């Protein structure tokens, strides 16, 4: 049985005193690609934040997760006044390498070759998301939790991101993401429908 990267047992999610999800069981093994599906407002983002360990108050039940997790929410997590290079070099999650050529290589991968030294607020929203996603090429965290990674990204970027996710999954990592766009990884993808657990 391949090693479990993420194991959530009988998790109940509450917002204030209202229960959103009840008794959710979710196990992610190595080399799996999961998509959280369900209608808007069922609690996909809250569940993903609970998996990452960001939400603790309204969450009961046990969640075992690896020591380091790469989480990418809606916000890029970049300082607008710093350049992409500086942002990646001193990224607050502490993940990933610090060598300069690694950073430039990653920025090239996401098609930001020319603007390593521009302050991030000079870049477009789509470019800012690519800087955030450049971390995927730099970091060795086994488990990735991505919230709507495919929004505000053009088709080329989406293809690039899809390829990177597949490579990570084949290399033994695993990814859990939420997305509204039709899924593009037909064969490898496993869907987790949260509406079954909705209250």
């Amino acid at each position, binding site marked *: 049985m391949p090693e479990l990267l993420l194991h959530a047992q009988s998790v109940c999610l509450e917002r204030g005193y209202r229960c959103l999800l009840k008794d959710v069981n979710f196990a992610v093994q190595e080399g799996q690609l999961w998509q959280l599906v369900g209608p808007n407002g069922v609690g996909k983002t809250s569940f993903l934040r609970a998996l990452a360990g960001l939400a603790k108050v309204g969450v009961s039940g046990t969640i075992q997760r690896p020591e380091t997790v790469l989480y990418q929410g809606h916000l890029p*997590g970049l300082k607008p006044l710093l350049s992409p290079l500086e942002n990646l070099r001193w*990224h607050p999650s502490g*993940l990933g390498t610090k060598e300069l050529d690694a950073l430039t290589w990653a920025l090239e991968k996401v098609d930001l070759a020319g603007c390593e030294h521009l302050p991030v607020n000079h870049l477009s929203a789509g470019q800012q998301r690519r800087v955030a996603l450049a971390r995927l090429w730099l970091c060795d965290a086994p488990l990735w939790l991505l919230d709507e990674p495919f929004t505000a990204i053009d088709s080329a970027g989406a293809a690039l991101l899809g390829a990177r996710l597949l490579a990570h999954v084949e290399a033994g990592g695993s990814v859990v993401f939420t997305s509204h766009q039709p899924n593009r990884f037909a064969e490898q993808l496993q869907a987790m429908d949260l509406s079954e657990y909705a209250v």
Partner: protein
Amino acid sequence: MPSNRPTSRDLPGDNAWEGAPSSGALAYLGSQFNRHLRASLRRPGELLNPLVFFLMVVTLFPLGLGPAPEQLSAMAPGILWVVALLANLTVSGRLFVADFEDGSLEQMLLARHSLALTAMAEVMVHWLLSGVTLALVSPLFAAMLNLPSAGIPVLMVSLLLGSLCLSLIGAIAAALTVSLRRGGLLMSLLIIPLNVPILIFGVAAVSEAANGYNASAWLALLGAFACGGLVLAPLAIGAGLRISMDT
């Protein structure tokens, strides 16, 4: 270069950069300190905010209390310290809001290293840029209020230590209110009661020195408060940030 069909095989070099170690705790603290310092220095105008606020409010007192030098010099320690406290109050409220808005706070929570570490880095940067600059410029304000020259060195030292305590307590309140939209009045309601001892020690130190007595006892108290704060405050700041991010 990237083909449009995402077959994973033929995309060259799609795996992560070989050998991507994460950093150790101290390197992480250094990187966060660097990050906040660079981000703050990119907008130098903001460094003047506490100083300009201090200057403006100090000029109000002679207008209010009359220009008589001996009256002003009697009240100078109190005025200087109260205004320093208010200047710190206006600045420390916004401490974590920038990180909250651009998403860095979320990433900080997920770091392998303890949140207290990152919070310390941020508070140190904030102290360096607001507290230390205030302490360095304070002789100018002391001269404006005709503070006896014997009190000026102690004023600088007490402001140096005191602003560290003020920043630590301000950071605790900032951490607890970072996710709230209308935190303004709430910040002062949370911070001012906790800052009272620092104000008392600081004013006592400066007025003792101004009258020629030895102020080392009060400075020692400020130092003790700073040391205690350095140890305990990061725990509260870390807990506060984690709770604020939970809504």
